């Protein structure tokens, strides 16, 4: 009967209660959407980092700079035959990349670019190209041609077939420069690379940097990414003190921490929304209590205890909380499930990021799969209900303290 009474009292003033309900719906939805998106972004960044920058394990020269466009080639790594065989046996794929930072000159204009010298045969075993869009030549058939990124095309006004000058230091420290034809444009899905990057095929890289068999990066992909730590440790041993290895987890830690900060901020927003919902519900229940003084008096006269009055009004808060939580969880859950299955096309956002340059070093996949988590859904709904119940306790206590003799004749 209490539940029926509470439900009917809630629906009796549905317009007023709807406002409180909307706050609960919004609070629950922000928790679900916020957590799902942040988790999705986190996974997206991790996957993009693995698929476009580091693989599961990366080895580079000791104290190699990891920020900015600094890619020294004076201290490089050498992978001996034993290590190569071991990598063949213990990874799903591995490759070498020589990163260098030449000046790219076109006529009167010049800019520092991030160049990747890659092996077209082994590189795709670590870095899938399903998100690449290319125009003109590919890295497989570029020969001595250069593949530039859309950002470089935009900044220097390069057209296909233009001859540009690439000027860099060689591995031995000499200055070297070559006239190079631009034969292709490639978009890799890594915003930093797509803004200031170029891809050099092996012949061109070798001719420019004169690095022989040495390389700046050794990158490996595994069947399971949680095996990365053990492979990184073994690779470290094999490459010696001149090298440092890192797992995908270490490489993305700062970005993941930034996402966790974002998560915390979203949680705060959700908390503020639910605090507003709590205020709304407290106000609604308080108004209901003051409007229904005579009803409270009558129920007390009929034998309802003070605790019973508290239960009645808390049940009304509970009904509002449950309704809001179910609605919020259903709406946001449906959206999250849909986006977790179909994904969200991030191309427009990435285009904005490329323009701004703020996220130069943050790789992002073009598709975002948000995380659909039933546990988060349930947790958010329970939290919403708990807030509603908590908010109704104070007005319920006030209602229970009304003297029945006065209340019954109010």
């Amino acid at each position: 009967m209490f539940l029926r009474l509470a439900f009917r009292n809630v629906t009796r003033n549905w317009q007023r209660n709807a406002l409180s309900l909307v706050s609960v719906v919004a609070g629950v939805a922000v928790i679900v959407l916020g957590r799902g998106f942040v988790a999705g972004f986190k996974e997206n960044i991790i996957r993009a980092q693995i698929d476009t920058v580091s693989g599961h394990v990366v080895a580079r020269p000791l104290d190699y700079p990891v920020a900015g466009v600094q890619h020294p080639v004076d201290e490089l790594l050498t992978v001996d035959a034993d290590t190569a065989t071991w990598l063949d046996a213990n990874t799903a794929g591995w490759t070498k990349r020589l990163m260098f930072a030449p000046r790219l000159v076109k006529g009167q204009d010049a800019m520092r670019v991030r160049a990747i010298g890659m092996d077209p045969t082994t590189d795709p075993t670590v870095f899938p190209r399903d998100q690449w869009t290319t125009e003109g030549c590919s890295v497989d058939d570029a020969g001595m041609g250069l593949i530039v990124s859309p950002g470089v095309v935009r900044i220097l006004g390069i057209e296909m077939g233009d001859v540009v000058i690439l000027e860099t230091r060689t591995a031995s420290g000499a200055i070297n420069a070559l006239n190079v034809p631009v034969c292709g444009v490639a978009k890799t899905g890594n915003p930093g690379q797509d803004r200031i990057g170029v891809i050099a095929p092996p012949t061109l890289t070798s001719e420019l940097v004169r690095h022989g068999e040495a390389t700046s990066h050794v990158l490996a992909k595994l069947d399971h990414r949680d095996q990365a730590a053990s492979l990184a440790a073994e690779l470290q041993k094999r490459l010696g003190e001149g090298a440092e290895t890192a797992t995908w987890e270490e490489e993305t830690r700062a970005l993941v921490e930034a996402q966790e900060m974002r998560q915390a901020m979203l949680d705060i927003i959700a908390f503020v929304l639910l605090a507003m919902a709590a205020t709304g519900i407290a106000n609604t229940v308080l108004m209901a209590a003051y409007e229904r003084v005579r009803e409270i008096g009558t129920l007390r006269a009929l034998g309802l205890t003070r605790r019973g009055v508290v239960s009645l009004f808390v049940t009304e808060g509970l009904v509002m909380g449950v309704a809001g939580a179910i609605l919020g969880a259903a709406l946001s859950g449906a959206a999250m499930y849909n986006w977790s299955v179909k994904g969200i096309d991030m191309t427009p956002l990435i285009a904005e990021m490329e323009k701004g340059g703020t996220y130069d070093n943050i790789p992002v996949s073009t598709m975002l799969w948000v995380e659909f988590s039933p546990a988060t859904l349930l947790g958010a709904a329970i939290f919403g209900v708990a807030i509603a119940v908590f908010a109704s306790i104070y007005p319920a206590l006030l209602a229970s303290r009304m003297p029945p003799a006065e209340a019954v004749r109010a």
Partner: protein
Amino acid sequence: MASNTGSPRIICALRGATKTYGEGATLVRALDDVTVSFEAGEFTVISGPSGSGKTTLLNMVGLLDVPTSGEVEIDSQHTEKLSSRNLAAIRAQRIGFIFQSFNLVPVLTAVENVELALQLSDAPTANRRKRCEDALTAVGLGEHFHRRPNQLSGGQQQRVAIARALVKDPALVIADEPTANLDSVTGAKILDLMRQMNEERQVTFLFSTHDPMVMDRARRVVHLRDGKVVEDERRNGDGG
């Protein structure tokens, strides 16, 4: 339970009951050392001008309020030291209330309003709905079980209130100005109904009223003035 062989059973008794409000110069004695008892099956009116203490006396008898000093007994049970919870339990099981403004719960139907009283009295769930329907039928609302208060006339609402008060077979029914919001014809019918219930079930009715129609039907009138019992009049109560 009191059962003095040969003498009527006392349902409710006040002994030296005093209720004061305020203090010092503003002290008001709403009830002043009142000693009165009510027997099983009485149909009694508490009468007096406004401010004479009628409502305060009914509040004491109905255990909605406690006296500042003195004793209140319900069915020989002293109530002064009972907790709020125990007082609520006695109200739920032994006392029925009928109010001037009917005081039905607006979101419940007629039968649900009656059932609420049974639920609060911890009556067994078996046949609970049947008992409520019988109670409503007894007050002439056999066709209106599922109507909400706003779909009923004033007289019908008061009938629901009577059914609600009587459904739990209380020892005592307290009716505070039960006809004040009804026209005279409806009021008379309601009073006749209560009188009928009183006679059929031997339920004690205690009224507070100014209504001469109620006074005419009373078998006992207790007159109050300035918080004191000034006259206790026995009648045959056949008026109307």
